[in-house]
């Protein structure tokens, strides 16, 4: 079976044989390597492109081992690994079949050991992301109680009124009350859906096209109350509602990490304010999270992106929040940085647009 999604379909590059861009330099070597046909159920090397030399889009002069580091971060490779599970075949043994069997067996042992280390690291990274999420949820616990208790209170009051209206046989009032209850129940369902989507692990989810506006809405629903409880203005500004290819749970987690940090930074200050801006810039979606807290010295800004660096006490900060943000951005072929020049704290998250040809996504 060779009908699974190949790299040229995943990347929409048009570099397969007969594809829309194949006339430029001919088809990509990944699309032509017949020895790998069927590997991971793909056509030719379409699902094992990482072992191909000189694939297109900036890798034309690179041997496979020179681009392999980028391939390990590529969402296509990740998707093939997840999809194939235990059947996943790295594919190198097929290409090295002509080598001396002794050399090949040494190479394969080394490869399997490397893969074991890589799997352990991937697992640790995911545990880290989940641990940070638990940390974020802990901070939200108080506002979650408020989020649930207010509509629950409205429901209880409506039930009491409904009983009275039924006793009085007042059909008009009963209709009014049940309409109100329906609205409250839908509101509660929205809250539960949001929290459920945030608590699940995103790693097993495929990347999907998502509107930035939807991601902002989910984030606002999760931390809006926390900001409001702290007397902080939280403003979401969307210059253009672009579509990105992502695991939305993870992008929401990045925004929540940054907003929770910003809340701690501006709380108690004059006119505390946090702005989350979304825009399109050079083939990327750009998300900025800025606050009007005190200026952070350049030396501290430089250390902030290092794992385990924290200015909070040990009880409140793991020092891994920004590392998790950076990991998530890189897993999405994007970037995450702090603005070193801004007098306020400003983080910038760049993510590839869905279907956008940014160069970053084309590593094979």
């Amino acid at each position, binding site marked *: 079976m060779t009908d699974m999604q190949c790299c040229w379909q995943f990347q929409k590059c048009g570099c397969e044989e007969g594809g829309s861009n194949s006339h430029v330099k001919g088809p990509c070597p990944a699309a032509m390597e017949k020895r790998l046909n069927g590997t991971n159920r793909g056509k030719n090397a379409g699902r094992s492109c990482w072992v191909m030399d000189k694939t297109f889009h900036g890798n034309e002069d690179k041997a496979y081992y020179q681009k392999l580091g980028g391939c390990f971060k590529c969402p296509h490779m990740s998707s093939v690994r997840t999809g194939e599970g235990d059947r996943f075949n790295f594919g190198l043994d097929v290409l090295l079949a002509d080598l001396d069997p002794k050399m090949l067996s040494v190479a394969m042992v080394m490869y399997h050991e490397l893969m074991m280390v890589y799997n352990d690291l991937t697992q640790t990274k995911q545990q880290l992301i989940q641990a940070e999420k638990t940390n974020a949820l802990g901070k939200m616990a*108080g*506002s979650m*109680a*408020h*989020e*649930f*208790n*207010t*509509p*629950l*209170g*409205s*429901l*209880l*009051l*409506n*039930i*009491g*009124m409904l009983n*009275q*209206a039924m006793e009085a046989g007042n059909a008009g*009032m009963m209709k*009014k*009350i049940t309409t*109100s209850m329906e*609205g*409250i129940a839908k*509101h509660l369902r929205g809250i539960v859906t949001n929290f459920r989507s945030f608590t699940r692990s995103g790693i097993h989810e495929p990347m999907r096209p998502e509107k930035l506006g939807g991601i902002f809405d989910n984030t606002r629903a999760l931390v809006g109350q926390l900001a*409001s*409880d702290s*007397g902080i*203005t939280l403003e979401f500004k969307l210059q253009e509602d672009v579509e990105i290819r992502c695991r939305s749970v993870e992008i929401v987690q990045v925004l929540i990490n940054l907003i929770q940090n910003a809340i701690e930074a501006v709380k108690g200050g004059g006119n505390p304010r946090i702005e989350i801006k979304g825009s399109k810039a050079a083939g990327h979606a750009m998300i900025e999270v800025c606050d009007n807290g005190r200026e952070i010295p350049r030396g501290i800004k430089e250390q902030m992106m290092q794992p385990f660096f924290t200015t909070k006490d040990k009880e409140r900060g793991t020092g891994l929040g920004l590392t998790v943000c950076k990991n998530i951005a890189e897993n999405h072929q994007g970037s995450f940085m702090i603005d070193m020049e801004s007098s306020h704290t400003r983080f910038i998250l760049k993510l590839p647009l869905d279907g956008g040809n940014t160069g970053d996504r084309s590593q094979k």
Partner: protein
Amino acid sequence: MTQARILVVDDDLNMRETLAMMLEMAGFNAAKAEDGLAARELMQSGDFDLVISDIKMPRMNGIELFTWNKQNKNIPTILITGFADIIETKEAFEMGVLEFLAKPFDNEEIMSAVMKTLETKKA
């Protein structure tokens, strides 16, 4: 007594509308405000017998509204909150709030607090 004017202050639309509807059903005259600032404006221009106010609200919260009310109007107040904690409760009572209810509460609890507060005012 049943014509008493009650001001409901809550930034949650459902809660504000539901409380006002319940009070109207019980024969009271209910007005609504979405936060402390809007409530203060209504209180400056009209007379109220009772204020039922949420605590956590944008612009002006329930504690700030109560402080202003105590100094300027002295209208009996019931504070309600969805995020009750011991410090808030203690702070509210120390400031002279007669009734403090944690959400979620039912009709009997809020009506009992309303009647008790109005009776205290009359006395």
